Every structure is written in structure tokens, then in C-alpha cells.
């Protein structure tokens, strides 16, 4: 099964490649059609900022509310010119993280939030999300599972190599 068309066809589709993780923290790279070089991140906040800025840059999907700030005036930062893609979706979606890869497609931005679909490339699983919080929880839980699996594989591997029976020490 390849990447579903409802992910591939969305102009803002982005590959969130997770290379390393700690509990509730991820590190990796983001690729999308409007960026030549990957954006490296070491926490979740830059992921949110990059994807939100991408939607603003290409006017898709349009935000349904004006952004709020602590400034006295509600400042609206919107570029007048729509960004042009520098690469095609297949080139973006072939990227892979060392730990996990999530292809994120934001299809609407209602309630000052995001709605869309996320596809976990390694597991070939797709989920819908109703908010950016839900997207983050999906990604972080999936990464946590992957991390646990890697830990278990490492542990099992060491046990096989040493051919010692007994309990598995945490790494």
C-alpha cells in the first residue's frame, strides 16, 4: 500500500521525519514542497510553527480566524504573494526518519486550530486529527511506541548474542 491520495494530493503535505525522541520530545527534520532544504527541529514547537507558516505562505488552507497577539493591536502578518513549490510531492514523501515518519496533510484551519490527516509511513496507518493537539498526541504516542519497540529489539538482540536467559534490563 502506497501513500493515500488524500495525503499526496494536499499542497501543504509535509514529511515529519523523527530521528530521535525522549518522552514527549522529538528531534528530526521536516520536508515539504516549498522548501529546498529540510528544517531541523529539536522540539514540537518549531514543528507547529513551520507547518502553520507553510499554510500561511501558500494560502491553503486559509485560517478562519485572525491571529491574536499580546500587542495592543491585533497584528496580521500575511505575505501578499503565494509561494511557489520548489519540489514535487513524491520527492517529499520519500523522505524517512531514523525512528518514524509522519506525512501530515492539513486540510482546514477552523477554531484557530488544524484539521487533517496524518499517515504513519512505516506502519502504513492513516488517522484523522481534529486539532494540532490531537496531531501532536498521535505523533508522540506513535514515537513512544516505536522507541519502546527499538528498546525491546536492542534488548532481545543483546540477549540472543549473549545467550543468557533472564530479565531484560532497561536501556
Amino acid at each position, binding site marked *: 500500500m502506497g501513500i493515500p491520495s488524500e495525503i499526496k494530493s494536499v499542497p501543504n503535505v509535509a514529511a515529519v521525519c523523527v530521528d530521535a525522541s525522549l518522552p514527549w520530545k522529538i528531534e528530526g527534520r521536516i520536508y515539504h514542497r516549498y522548501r529546498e532544504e529540510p528544517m531541523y527541529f529539536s522540539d514540537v514547537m518549531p514543528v507547529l510553527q513551520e507547518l502553520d507558516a507553510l499554510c500561511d505562505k501558500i494560502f491553503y488552507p486559509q485560517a478562519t480566524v485572525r491571529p491574536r497577539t499580546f500587542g*495592543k493591536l491585533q497584528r496580521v502578518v500575511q505575505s501578499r504573494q503565494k509561494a511557489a513549490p520548489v519540489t514535487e510531492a513524491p520527492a517529499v514523501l520519500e523522505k524517512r526518519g531514523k525512528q518514524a515518519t509522519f506525512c501530515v496533510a492539513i486540510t482546514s484551519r477552523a477554531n*484557530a*486550530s488544524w484539521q487533517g490527516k496524518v499517515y504513519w509511513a512505516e506502519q502504513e496507518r492513516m488517522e484523522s486529527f481534529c486539532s494540532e493537539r490531537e496531531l501532536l498526541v498521535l505523533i508522540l504516542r506513535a514515537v513512544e511506541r516505536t522507541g519502546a519497540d527499538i528498546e525491546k529489539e536492542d534488548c532481545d538482540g543483546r540477549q540472543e548474542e549473549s545467550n543468557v536467559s533472564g530479565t531484560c534490563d532497561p536501556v
Partner: protein
Amino acid sequence: MDDKRKATFLVHVTQCENAGWQGQVTWLDENVTRNFRSVLELMKLMDGVLHESDEEISGQSG
């Protein structure tokens, strides 16, 4: 831009609608309160304080 800017916020979550959080966030250093409609908006409000210059925040009229 001052990357080392520090700030203190009081976050009051009053609702959990639309798979997100809604409530009020108060920037305690300036005693300014804003409503937020999602976690994204809350984070952007706080990030705006930490990464914008004083002129951008206080130099606006209205």
C-alpha cells in the same frame, strides 16, 4: 530580537472543545490577558512575547 527574553504566564484552561483547549493566558510581567482558542494559539501568543522585540509588542497603537 532578544533570544534570552524571559516571561511569566498564567494559563487558565476553561474549556476543552474541538479536541483542544480554550481559556485565558495572562502575561504577568505586563499584566495583559488574552483569550486563546486552541493550544496552537496559546503557544503562538507566548512565543510572540519571547521572540518579538519590545517595539513590536508595545509600539503598536489601538
